[in-house]
């Protein structure tokens, strides 16, 4: 039996919503079949007020073993580093985060806000938000760069806005069933099993990407969304086209560009009109090129690919 405690900081509850939609295993299966004992969760916990506080205190004192601490949402430090804007059970939430992280065997940061700061940490960051062990690309965050949980692992980052239910449940199951040793994390502490490939891996528009045929409107069934609509699929690490959403589809399959929500810099847009869902260019060349491709190579490749493109690539191949 692995005890799990889940708290929310500067969050919209999106990751909770996503988690509650999990199937195979569902949140219930985690409890009944995988030995996860949910001590408390914002939507599932039954304790209120003093009882909730007593429960957390018993985790902090060591009376109750805390195996997995999941944190969703940013760590809020405002105003002036006090964290008073986000109080919970009698103290700033950030104090609970520190106390519980020090006691937990595993600490899981869930969603972009908890991992890297996400939307709340966008400039000018009025809530003084940061992620558990990162602020955007910079290692450190609230717990500091050297933090490791009792298991010896740093914070396990499961980014996403929100994270896919399977990313969460599979990591929780791995940890609860004693297979955490199999987890390898990348430089941003994301489990490599999910975050080594790109959103583009498995995208149905790959042929259009290869032949440089562009979609010019959302939902178009032909064309790739990289050239005009700002798709970040070629430079975003996620399994969104390998582990489908609702077991059905993905953003890019449906004709909606990837926003890069699993990368530390998300959200990438700078709030200027016309910068969202639009490929940003410098003298007509995309500002952000597919990972590992340089500008010269990109221009050469595009010329050659367009010249070689077959006629069918310009037509709608997904005919009803």
């Amino acid at each position, binding site marked *: 039996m692995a005890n799990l405690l889940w708290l929310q900081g500067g969050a919209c509850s999106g990751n909770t919503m996503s988690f509650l939609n999990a199937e195979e295993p569902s949140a219930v299966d985690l409890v009944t079949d995988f030995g996860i004992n949910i001590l408390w969760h914002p939507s599932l916990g039954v304790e209120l007020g003093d009882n909730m506080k007593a429960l957390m205190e018993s985790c902090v004192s060591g009376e109750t073993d805390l195996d997995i601490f999941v944190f969703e949402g940013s760590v809020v430090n405002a105003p002036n580093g006090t964290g008073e804007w986000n109080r919970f059970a009698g103290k700033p939430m950030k104090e609970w985060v520190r106390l519980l992280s020090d006691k937990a065997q595993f600490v899981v940061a869930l969603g972009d806000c908890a991992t890297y700061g996400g939307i709340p940490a966008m400039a000018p960051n009025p809530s003084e938000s940061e992620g558990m062990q990162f602020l955007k690309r910079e290692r450190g965050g609230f717990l500091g760069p050297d933090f490791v949980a009792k298991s010896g692992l740093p914070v396990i980052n499961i980014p996403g806005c929100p994270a896919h239910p399977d990313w969460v449940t599979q990591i929780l199951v791995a940890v609860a069933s004693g297979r955490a040793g199999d987890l390898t994390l990348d430089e941003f502490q994301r489990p490599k099993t999910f975050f080594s490939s790109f959103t583009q891996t498995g995208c149905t528009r790959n042929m259009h990407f290869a032949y440089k045929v562009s979609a010019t409107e959302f939902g178009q069934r032909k064309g790739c969304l990289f050239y005009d609509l700002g798709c970040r699929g070629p430079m975003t690490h996620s399994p969104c086209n390998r582990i489908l959403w609702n077991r059905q589809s993905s953003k890019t399959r449906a004709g909606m560009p990837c926003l890069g929500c699993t990368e530390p810099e998300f959200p990438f847009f700078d709030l200027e009109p016309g910068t969202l869902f639009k490929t940003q260019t*410098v003298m007509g060349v995309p500002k952000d090129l597919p990972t590992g491709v340089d500008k010269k190579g990109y221009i050469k490749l595009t010329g050659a690919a367009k010249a070689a493109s077959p006629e069918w690539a310009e037509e709608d191949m997904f005919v009803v």
Partner: protein
Amino acid sequence: MSDSDDKIRKQAEKLLKDGLKTEVFPRAYTQEQIQDVLTRIRQSDGSLEQRLIIGGFTLYPIEDEDIEQACETCMYYLVHRRYCELPELDVPVEAEWSCRLWRI
């Protein structure tokens, strides 16, 4: 489709050969410039002439910092149909033409 494409392509070519003054410069490089050109096209009468003028069309590629900006390599260009699919322009073109909305 291709007959009517040919007809419009020829019209465009004739207009440009006859000396239609188009706004070749400044090239639309920044997001603001692109938006500005697109908005002006949307607000124009939408005629072929206006699209050519505001789009800054030429019958030859414009070169800037060693990059040749021809329809041929532009991501809005359909190679087989010889067509510009940018919704605001939506016009048959030739591979060696160019406009200031070029992007690769």
